[in-house]
């Protein structure tokens, strides 16, 4: 006759997964859910004459939604993110393609490491590198003048151009690898079949490789776009006070104790990122073969 398992043992077993998850839940509640909740609460307070006034009001939202200045800020933020995503994809796709087509494994490993290596260097260092490279007397202007392409140094830094170039560089690895991953998933026989049936290189690329790597492109675009929306260090160091994207406004508002504005601006950033994620997930569902 078998004895039933002791009750406590069964309960302990059922509780085990929750016990293992408990530290993660505690962390998420204390350092994520509560702070975000309290943050959103501040959006309904107001800030007047340098003082925080805690009564329930939509005044901050109203100001943010109807002030043309903030429309321009939101538009600029979206514009920077869109341009950076486009450039990173335009540079990243051929690089991923090259990485995929490389025949020598050693060369492939080194090229992969070169593309990955900037991730290991602080974004502060990389942005600083671009300020040096793009300066009036920097290497890029020197090379362009040497080549006789320009007579006067171009203004490449402390404006939108510098921010866009530097951000595209910072996010490049996050674009190359999802696309590369999609390429390695591709069945090589499909391309061979297309070639055997007489399709030229361009037709094969356009009708086989590109559509089948679309999920990678969408994933890469989502990562680049959301990261670019939230970028602070690069616009602060390369914008020269002329590129006033939303993260910079949130940063400034926070230092000025204008927390209601920081909360509303932060919520706007969060919503833009969420829309990008939802949209790309929708696209992924269509693109998935």
């Amino acid at each position, binding site marked *: 006759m078998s004895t039933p398992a002791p009750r406590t043992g069964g309960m302990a077993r059922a509780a*085990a*997964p929750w016990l*293992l*998850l408990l*530290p*993660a839940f505690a*962390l998420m509640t204390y350092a*994520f859910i*509560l*702070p975000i909740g*309290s*943050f959103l609460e501040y959006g309904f307070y107001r800030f007047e004459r340098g003082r925080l006034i805690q009564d329930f009001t939509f005044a901050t939202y109203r100001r943010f939604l109807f002030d043309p200045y903030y429309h321009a800020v939101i538009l600029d933020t979206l514009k920077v993110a869109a341009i950076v995503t486009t450039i990173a994809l335009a540079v990243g796709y*051929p*690089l991923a393609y*090259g*990485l*995929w087509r490389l025949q020598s*494994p050693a060369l*492939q490993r*080194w*090229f*992969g490491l*070169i593309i*990955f290596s*900037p*991730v*290991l*260097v*602080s*974004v502060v260092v*990389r942005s*600083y*590198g671009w*300020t*040096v*490279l793009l300066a009036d007397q*920097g*290497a890029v*202007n020197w090379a362009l003048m040497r080549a006789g392409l320009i007579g006067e140094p171009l203004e490449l830094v402390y404006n939108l151009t510098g921010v866009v170039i530097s951000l595209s*560089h910072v996010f*490049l690895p996050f674009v190359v690898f999802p696309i*590369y991953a999609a390429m390695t*998933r591709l069945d090589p026989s499909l391309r061979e079949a297309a070639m055997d049936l007489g399709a030229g290189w361009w037709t094969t690329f356009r009708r086989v490789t590109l559509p089948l790597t679309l999920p990678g492109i969408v994933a890469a675009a989502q990562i680049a776009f*959301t990261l670019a*929306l*939230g970028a*602070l*260090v690069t616009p*602060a*160091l390369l914008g020269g006070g002329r590129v006033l994207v939303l*993260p910079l406004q*949130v940063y400034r508002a*926070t*230092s000025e104790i204008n927390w209601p504005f*920081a*909360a509303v601006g*932060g919520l706007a*950033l*969060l919503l833009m*990122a969420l829309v990008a994620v939802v949209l790309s997930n929708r696209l992924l569902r269509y693109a998935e073969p």
Partner: protein
Amino acid sequence: MHRRLPHPRHIALAAFCVAGALFILSPLAIVILTSFSATAYNVFPPQEYSLRWYETLAAQGAFYGAALRSVVLATATMAIALLIGTLASYALVKYALRGRDLIKGMLLAPIVLPNIVLGVALFIFFVRIGTVNSYPSLLITHVLVVTPFVVAITGAAFANFDWSTEEAAMDLGAGPVETFLRVVLPQVRAGVVMAGVFAWIISFDQVETTLFLVRPGQSTLPIEMFLYLQKWQDPTIAALSSILILAAGVVVVALSIAGRGRTPADIIKQQREGSG
């Protein structure tokens, strides 16, 4: 017979890849070059070379302290996040919990949030409960940022794990902790090590999330550099950056040796088999 020349299309692709590699490495290379320049302003090519910026750097005590604090913080963050994240992903993969996808989605949510939003939200929250500027608050913030990455990476490793070996160990009388440490952990070691490396690097590079949390004179290295660069642009930062780039270079060479015989495709495939 002579060898066929490569197709122009392949030459164009190779040229693009070389240009791409130059684009990727040039901001790092220029930093190293600038650090040896003799002048305080940026001129390319440098007119004279010297080690004066390394001497200036050596005299700047603030950076030593910041570097030490960052290393300690990243190491503590890595240890705590590995513990919390590995336990969570183990539970999520092993047990068919109700609402597993929802729980996983919640644990990964901080990745999607723009870092500046997270940083400001945590700052306001810590001010409100009166723990701003305390070391635990800084540490908790780093752990929160890093844990989702640990959950994702170790989750992939557990998905590859052969659970029957765990059962066998338990049947042979090993306790749950002993089984985990001696049977489970050795098999998922590669995933845990990778999660640890990522956790360390991500923690070391935090700026937006902790910009408001560090006390003046107590900041981490990237924040100290960021605040310095907003005031001055002399090559002292280039000298410091060069040292950081050198450290990253050592990591790259180590990765290359560790990955010998494997291509990036193998690594991605391994990850995918885990998560799929």
